[in-house]
């Protein structure tokens, strides 16, 4: 759990983070979202004290971060950034082993952990261990960056636009990986992005920041359905936010039980957005719904999608 209490930070009298309070629950995937200059990166970097805050208090796991030596704190917290920052003179193996070695883990344990992480990130250990960063593609480099951040099994993972510099296909793959890893490891993640689509895809909780202040804190659905201000409504997409809302809700929430319809059925966990796509593609306003085992559940109509 991370508790941020009334934290402020100013550069040359200019407040980049202004009286910010936020509590990220254990195991949450918290996305800090906002336009550039809103203070989201600064907030992230204050958690592991790469940036010193002027006022307020931050606690990680109940412990005041200023009571811990900064290096010890950072070794407990995973850190991945957009520019990756792999050490170019170290092999993949050494890069991933950075924090375990700083913590003086025994050699064999480090080696096993590197193997485990390469497998977790779907990089073949035999192929990748001994490569140098310049021999990897951008996507592979960021996989190594994420593996490095996870190496010492940190209680918390800080990620600053980690997928901002890779191509869309690689990006989608990496987003899939991080969801899978978060579900498997139950780690608390704080993730900075300016991309609303990425935030809606990954987050359990979203904090929207506006000029250093918290504009809204809630689940992705909250943000779309009940934007707290014009700024939030505008940022989550204005008129187009309706379409995003469709992608967060599933057919199961809107179907008519017992009713029947013709055609290839939809699964009940299909998003309403995909249901709309399917109806448009098949020139129909009504489709049957089944569960994952194929058992019929009912039908859904075009009118249900926008109800």
């Amino acid at each position, binding site marked *: 759990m991370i508790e941020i209490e009334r934290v402020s930070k100013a550069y040359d009298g200019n407040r980049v983070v202004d009286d910010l309070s936020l509590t990220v629950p254990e195991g949450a995937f918290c996305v800090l979202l906002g336009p550039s200059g809103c203070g989201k990166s600064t907030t992230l970097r204050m958690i*592991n004290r*790469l940036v010193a805050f002027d006022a307020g208090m931050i606690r990680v796991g109940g412990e005041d971060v200023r009571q811990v030596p*900064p*290096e*010890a*704190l*950072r*070794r407990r917290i995973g*850190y991945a*950034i957009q*520019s*990756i*920052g*792999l*050490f*170019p*003179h*170290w092999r993949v193996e050494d890069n991933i082993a*950075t*924090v375990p070695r*700083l913590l003086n883990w025994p050699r064999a344990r480090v080696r096993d952990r590197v193997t485990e992480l390469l497998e977790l990130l779907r990089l073949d250990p035999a192929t990748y261990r001994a490569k*140098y960063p310049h021999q990897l593609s951008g996507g592979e480099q960021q996989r190594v*960056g994420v593996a*490095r951040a996870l190496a010492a099994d940190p209680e918390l993972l*800080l990620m600053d636009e980690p997928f901002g510099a890779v191509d869309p296909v690689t990006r989608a793959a990496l987003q899939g990986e991080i969801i899978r890893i978060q579900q498997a490891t139950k780690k608390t993640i704080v993730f900075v992005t300016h991309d609303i689509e990425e935030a809606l895809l990954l987050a359990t909780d979203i904090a929207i920041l506006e000029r250093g202040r918290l504009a809204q804190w809630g689940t992705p659905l909250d943000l779309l359905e009940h934007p707290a201000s014009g700024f939030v409504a505008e940022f989550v997409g204005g008129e187009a936010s309706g379409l995003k809302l469709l992608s967060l809700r599933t057919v199961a929430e809107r179907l008519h039980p017992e009713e029947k319809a013709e055609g290839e059925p939809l699964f009940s966990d299909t998003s309403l957005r995909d249901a709309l796509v399917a109806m448009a593609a098949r020139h129909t306003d009504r489709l049957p719904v089944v569960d994952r085992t194929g058992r019929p559940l009912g039908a859904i109509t075009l009118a249900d999608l926008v109800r």
Partner: protein
Amino acid sequence: MLADMTAIRSNGVSKLHNHVLPALIGTGVAAVLSTGFVTVAPNRLLSGRPIGLFAAADRTLGVAIAIIAALLLLSALAPPSRALQRAAAFLAGGLFLLVLATSGEAAAALVGGAPSLARVSLGAGFWILLGMAALALTDALQRAGAGAGERFAVIAALGLATAAMAHAGLFDALSLAREYKTRHDVFTAALLRHIILIAAAVGPAVAIGFPLGVAAVRHPRVQEPLFAVLNLLQTIPSIALFGLLIVPLAALANAVPAAAALGIGGIGPAPAIIALILYALLPIVRNSVAGIAGVDPAVIDAARGMGMTRRQLFWRVELPLALPLLIAGLRIVTVQAVGLAVVAALIGAGGLGSFVFEGLGQYAADLVLLGALPAILLALAADFLLQMLSALASRQ
């Protein structure tokens, strides 16, 4: 041979694959035809009369040189391959040694076995031929894609072969060797003194310059005044700097007897070493700053975010990444110091420069050469070794 070349060009059958070799060989041919391979003087103080390669040397040696040159020229016409370039390198290396051996043979033939005042010196033709052979070798090694190890082996082999020829007395008749013979007892000491001067200057220059460079990166404000001072030092002519140091160091030796006991004085090695250190500081500091400041900020951010301490960041990340540039700086100052240390003989620092100035005073060109030639070889060797070290450091 020139006629051969034009004939090959005009018949248009063969295509020229290497333009460097014909240019080198053309220059060599022109040098052989127009200048003396060696010069002969009645005694060591008079300037000599040039004698061409074929007039001076044994006929077979001259012909052998011509044949190797012709073979090298032919290799420029063949389609390039690794094996061909290796063969060309082998030929060029052979040519290099053959030119050296021919100079010794020519000298022996010209002065005969009898003790005589006559002197045989190396002529322009010899130097040009030797230079062309060395360039042809470098070119062939480069085209063959030779690695650092291979280059080292080739240069070591040439050095050993030359040393063996010298040891066998092949060059004894040359004026240069006779100058060496009369001074061989002081030569080794002078060479050693030269190396010590360089080490005594470069070591402290790194010890002072590297921390200064690191400090300049950490505190950007000091960079401007620091570089202003270092640049100013670099603009002082070396002879003037040696001279300027005489007065304060003499005063120091007078005032502090312990300093004088350590050998510090207005003349001698102390002012020379101090001047060499001052000249070495700018390249060392500049490359240290460039090396440390050139480390990707993302790498530093990641290192700090992982929990490295300042010290760990420096030793594990910044220093290894800056190392290739640091070695490049070391290379510059070492080569520079070899040359500057020659001038330092003027203020009594000793070293190879003492032969140069003695030779200048006596108007004896071969004595100048006895000091200059080892200095050049020393500079080349230092440059080569540090270049290899730099390649090793940046391999990762």
